[in-house]
């Protein structure tokens, strides 16, 4: 008992040390690059994707609910930014605009302009609610069926975004701008800091994204080791047994969707500001697969694995494919860019991982057991459990 506890503490301790060292190094990283370097751009995106991947990891990795519609939370987060930090609602308050803690420049513009931190909170709330709403119809479903329902949910949200410019309400406002961007979107402004200006330096965005990653890492580790985390794992391992032990299935599953969604929304709001534009084309189904590929590559359920997977896939997407290998086809006399094959490459990578290392690069302990040592009950589902 004692020895086990010490072991547990040592393990927790080493995680903390690792987190501090990695984050410390990451803080210093921008000083080695030009503030506007494309490396910085790639790094900011990688960090934002880590946040998303860690969010999806709660749903898919911890609770075992295969969610293929995660892009919906990106959309909700980004539109929170588009709605509440741009001139989208340009006629509110007699074209004067509504400003709450917005930056100096934004405070002179029409439309609603809230402080970025408020928008983060709004995005988190909207996405948590959306998470519960998508969770409800999947409660009685399992495995592949959950995947199909969540996939449909993601598509519904995209279609609403796509045709949102035809959906009018109140005094002629539309829901979205459809394929046209809501732009410009406010830069991030924080109390006590100078306003961010991505035209001048990407460093503040980088550090802000890094802070989000640190926060989300903390949340992930705490949740994993909590009662709720144990309930998620129990449901993933055996739903019938979990219910028999008194794990409330409804509440536990909905909390997974809500938490995962909320983190996706955070990252979505951040990306909305970072891209300085929100439009429906950003929310394709492929994005859900993009994030899912990160957690599969890294190792489902493994927090550090997911971080690694997110960095790798992100850099493959933003650096290796377009910058390093893009002209590769032409050296073979082929007339296309490698970027056109991006999703083919991700698909190929997933297949490769599934064949060579199905448990992911840095697997979670339990998953390694299932996939390498073949411990598990298999797929037998004796009964349909009351949801």
């Amino acid at each position: 008992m004692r020895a086990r506890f010490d072991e547990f503490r040592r393990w927790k301790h080493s995680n903390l040390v690792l987190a501090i060292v990695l984050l410390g190094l990451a803080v210093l990283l921008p000083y080695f690059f030009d503030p506007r370097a494309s490396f910085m751009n790639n790094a900011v995106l990688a960090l934002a994707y880590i946040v998303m991947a860690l969010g999806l990891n709660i749903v898919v990795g911890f609770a075992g609910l295969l969610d293929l519609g995660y892009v919906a939370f990106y959309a909700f987060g980004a539109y929170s930014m588009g709605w509440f930090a741009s001139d989208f609602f340009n006629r509110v308050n007699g074209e004067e605009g509504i400003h709450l803690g917005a930056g100096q420049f934004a405070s002179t513009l029409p439309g609603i302009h809230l402080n970025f931190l408020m928008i983060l909170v709004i995005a988190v709330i909207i996405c948590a609610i959306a998470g519960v709403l998508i969770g409800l119809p999947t409660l009685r479903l399992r495995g592949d069926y959950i995947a199909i329902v969540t996939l449909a949910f993601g598509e519904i949200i995209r279609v609403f975004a796509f045709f949102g410019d035809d959906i009018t309400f109140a005094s002629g406002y539309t829901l979205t701008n459809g394929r046209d961007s809501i732009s410009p979107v406010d830069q991030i402004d924080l109390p006590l800091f100078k306003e961010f200006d991505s035209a001048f330096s990407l460093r503040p965005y980088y550090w802000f994204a890094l802070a989000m990653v640190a926060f989300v890492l903390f949340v992930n580790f705490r949740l994993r080791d909590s009662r709720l985390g144990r309930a998620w794992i129990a449901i993933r391992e055996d739903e019938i047994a979990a219910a028999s032990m008194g794990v409330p299935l409804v509440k536990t599953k909905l909390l997974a969707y809500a938490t995962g969604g909320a983190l996706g929304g955070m990252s979505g709001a951040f990306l909305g500001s970072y891209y300085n534009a929100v439009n429906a084309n950003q929310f394709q189904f492929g994005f859900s697969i993009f994030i899912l590929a990160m957690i599969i590559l890294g190792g489902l359920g493994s927090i550090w694995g997911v971080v690694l997977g997110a960095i790798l896939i992100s850099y493959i997407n933003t650096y290796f494919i377009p910058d390093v290998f893009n002209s590769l086809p032409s050296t073979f006399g082929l007339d296309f860019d490698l970027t056109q094959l991006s999703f083919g490459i991700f698909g190929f990578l997933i297949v490769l991982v599934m064949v060579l290392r199905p448990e992911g690069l840095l697997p979670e302990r339990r998953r390694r057991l299932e996939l390498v040592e073949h411990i598990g009950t298999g797929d037998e589902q004796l009964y349909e459990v009351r949801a």
Partner: protein
Amino acid sequence: MALLEVDDIHTYYGNIEALKGVSLTVEEGEIVTLIGSNGAGKSTTLRSISGLTPPREGSIRFDGDDIAGVAPQDIVRKGISQAPEGRHVFPRLTVRENLDMGAYLRRDDHSEDMERVYDLFPRLKERERQKAGTMSGGEQQMLAIGRALMAQPKLLLLDEPSMGIAPILVDRIYETIKQINQQGTTILLVEQSAHHALDASQRGYVLATGQVALADDSDALRQNEDVRKAYLGA
């Protein structure tokens, strides 16, 4: 008043009526057995009581409260816990983690109960840090029973504790079931191998096609000609 009173419950899987009016009682301190062939509704009766598949009609009173239709976690909280059919241990959790999950709803220290389970099943203590999925069927059954005990139930539901287990272990498990009962836990037991179950219990019910066909003392059931033919292979 009996600890558990099941009164005329009808339980469905979709449109299929699996229980067509089952009534039974369990007195405090008893071991009661449900026997019956495949599909008679034995497991469904247990699942109705534990709330996993709540009955559509009828009432279930436990300790004075109506628990029909109450959520499973609230039923566990009231003092009914279950070792489900097919054991359903968490395969990739260790024995100890499985036992911890059994105490999921408790917020107090449960180390004493864990010691009690280890006393009842010394084999589990030996395998404390082994993954449950790597153990034999008998050991998994011990774990499933031990895990259910971690919730400190007043009423323990056991679903086919002898299924798929080496005969020598079945004897051992039934010894332990009697021991658990002597320590003060009431037990409702479902079993296809009626021999052991009727030996261990005071009373029994015979289920057939979703209804109670017979109810009597276990001794009387063992003497009953029909029961002997159908379930005891005599």
